């Protein structure tokens, strides 16, 4: 029982990540109709915002040691972080909290990246065939990825969660289990809550504002919306910016769970498309639902009891579920008619 509860928690956690990525993607893909193969790269860029902030905060003052030398004979470099030199105690707290602090940096940075990307490139591709959108965004993803690789290398770069959020909490005791039977890392619960807040905020923004309606209309027929006096381009840019921010924040907060490297985005890319499509094109709630569904099923499929019955099921469960859902429901879980069906 506790094993199952733990897997449910794992599922929610994975689901939060999938849902957040899919949420951003579905804004661009399910709503604007652009097949954005650079979405994974946006997630990756978000993660590297955290890396960069951490790097900046722990920038060192280098002094050369007079006594010690390196193994190859040059004087040893002694490094002390600026933050500590300047702010002392507070400095090291800043370094410790670099991941959550990065959110403040990631929001404007990702917004700018999103807007620049849309204005500079994507804008010209709304009316182009999906295939060409794939080519250009895939090209962009590779370029972004290679730039990150050139700066930060190919190796994963660890980003610890703040010390106070690093521990475990006894989740089982809270829900009436034996104390100590279901303990769960605090940061993962933080991630789950964070996802919840972001998803709620995006929903509120798009569902309860007329902007949502305008966006939907613009996607169905840009020209007519323009004829009604609405500057749809501006709104599309905004949506793109929001999507980039959502992807970026998902990336920032994920770094303590998964040490980021330049390839991180590609690993999530295919998965996020699957999530969006299983959720149903054009449906935000579908994407979120599918994210959690796939997360939970994936966790369960990895249990030894199940793997023993069906070997390898944990490796294909996502795709298997995708096939079953798409065959049973032509438009995914909550898809709208006519979106990207031809």
């Amino acid at each position, binding site marked *: 029982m*506790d*094993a199952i509860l*733990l*897997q449910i*928690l*794992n*599922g929610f*956690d*994975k689901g939060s*990540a999938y849902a957040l990525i899919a949420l951003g993607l579905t804004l661009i893909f399910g709503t604007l109709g652009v097949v954005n193969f650079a979405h994974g790269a946006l997630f990756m860029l978000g993660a590297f915002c955290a890396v960069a902030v951490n790097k900046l905060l722990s920038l060192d003052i280098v002094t050369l040691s007079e006594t010690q030398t*390196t*193994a*190859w*004979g*040059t004087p*040893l*470099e002694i490094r002390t972080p600026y933050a500590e030199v300047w702010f002392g105690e507070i400095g090291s707290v800043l370094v410790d909290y670099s991941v959550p602090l990065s959110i403040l940096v990631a929001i404007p940075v990702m917004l700018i990246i999103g807007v620049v990307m849309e204005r500079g490139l994507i804008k010209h591709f709304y009316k182009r065939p999906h295939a060409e959108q794939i080519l250009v965004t895939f090209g962009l993803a590779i370029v972004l990825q290679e730039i990150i*690789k050139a700066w930060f*290398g*190919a*190796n*994963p*770069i*660890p980003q*610890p*969660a703040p010390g106070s959020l*690093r*521990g*475990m909490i006894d989740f089982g005791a809270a829900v009436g289990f034996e104390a100590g*039977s279901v*303990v*769960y*890392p605090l*940061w*993962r619960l933080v991630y789950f809550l964070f996802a919840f807040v972001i998803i709620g905020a995006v929903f509120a923004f798009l569902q309860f504002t007329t902007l949502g309606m305008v966006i939907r209309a613009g996607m169905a027929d840009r020209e007519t919306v323009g004829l009604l006096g609405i500057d749809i381009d501006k709104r599309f840019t905004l949506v793109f910016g929001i999507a980039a921010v959502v992807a970026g924040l998902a990336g920032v907060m994920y770094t*303590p*769970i*998964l*040490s980021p*490297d330049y*390839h991180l985005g590609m*690993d*999530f890319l295919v998965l996020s498309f699957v999530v969006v499509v299983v959720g149903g094109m054009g449906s935000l709630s579908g994407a979120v639902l599918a994210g959690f569904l796939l997360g939970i099923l*994936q*966790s369960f499929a*990895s*249990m*030894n009891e199940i*793997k023993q019955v069906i070997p390898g099921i*944990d*490796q294909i469960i996502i795709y298997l579920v995708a096939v079953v859902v798409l065959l049973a429901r032509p438009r995914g879980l909550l898809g709208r008619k006519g979106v990207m069906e031809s």
Partner: protein
Amino acid sequence: ASYTNEPKGSTVTFGFNVPQTGAYADEGADELRAYELAVEHLNGEGDGGMMGTFSSKALKGNGVLGKKVVYVTGDTQTKSDAARASARRMIEADGAIMVTGGSSSGVAVAVQGLCQEVGVIFMAGLTHSNDTTGKDRKANGFRHFFNAYMSGAALAPVLKSNYGSDRKAYHLTADYTWGWTQEESIAAATEALGWETVNKVRTPLGAGDFSQYITPVLNSGADVLILNHYGRDMVNSLTQAVQFGLRDKQVNGKNFEIVVPLYSRLMAQGAGKNVNGIFGSTNWHWSLQDEASQAFVKSFGQKYGFPPSQAAHTCYSQAILYADACERAGTFNPCGVVEALEDFEFDGLGNGPTLYRGADHQCFKDVLVVKGKENPSSQFDLLEVVEVVPVANVTYAPDHPMFAGGDLGSCNAGV
């Protein structure tokens, strides 16, 4: 020509086939640095590095057999197909006389097979699977790096002395060839100590988040977690295992422990503080104090400003060993080289006296057991060597069951 790509002019071409993209790109970059250094030394430039300490004195610093060494490079992408395509380019278009490098066993086996077919020598880079010199061994292929069996054999006594002989181990294993041989080797070695294996769970390659595999460990009754992962998988599974509090746990009245059978410094860097106090094995480490290792670190450090990784070390050694074999054989003919390398005994390349065993083309030398360092003095100083396990303890018979089923065949000189 009497053999494939027989060098006709004043130069001889080596093929350096390393991962330049994908998860192991950093390893690949380090391998390439080492190769470039080796070429310098072979051609008599620079300080000569380990050529000075190497027990064979056949190399004269004027290239190989009087021909200047030049090289071509390629990207394996850590994919068998791409690695073979790249190797074929070197052989067919660039006239490479040998191919070396790589950073995964799959690639090593695939490229080794190719080299056997076309008749050039393959000097493996990073490859740790038993199969490379086991069931997939080839006459034209040679491995300097150690293997999974050796990791197990070297680690077991250290684990026993630190963690006792009454332990319950839980394995998480990367679900592909290398992972399986690693799991088999370490399980056998620990079971021989009296440890019990609670469970062996396969995880998909590149799973990213391993939480769904880690939570079952929590209440499984196991008190040791063995991570048969490498590279990114290892970085992630280790980080997450620590995150799930495994290291703070008490099970069966003992401290819960984590073991990573195969370590590398680059991985340790990726896992950060999480490696503190965790045991594993490695082929070589730059903090070794023997004369050869010191010479290599000095040479490499001066050129690049940081110490070499084990990947760099093994690749450098392979290049030197190959050149030396040619020199001693007096020919680049692969069959001559094979003969010169088989059962070749040498010293002065960093792991003490070493044998290139003729029966399977595997090097036998001391293996290092290392531990994540508590208080690193620099970003490179992440592992400390706790024990240098003598070669005798890790040697096995060529027909050991974990290596059985292979056949070197005969050397192929092509054409």
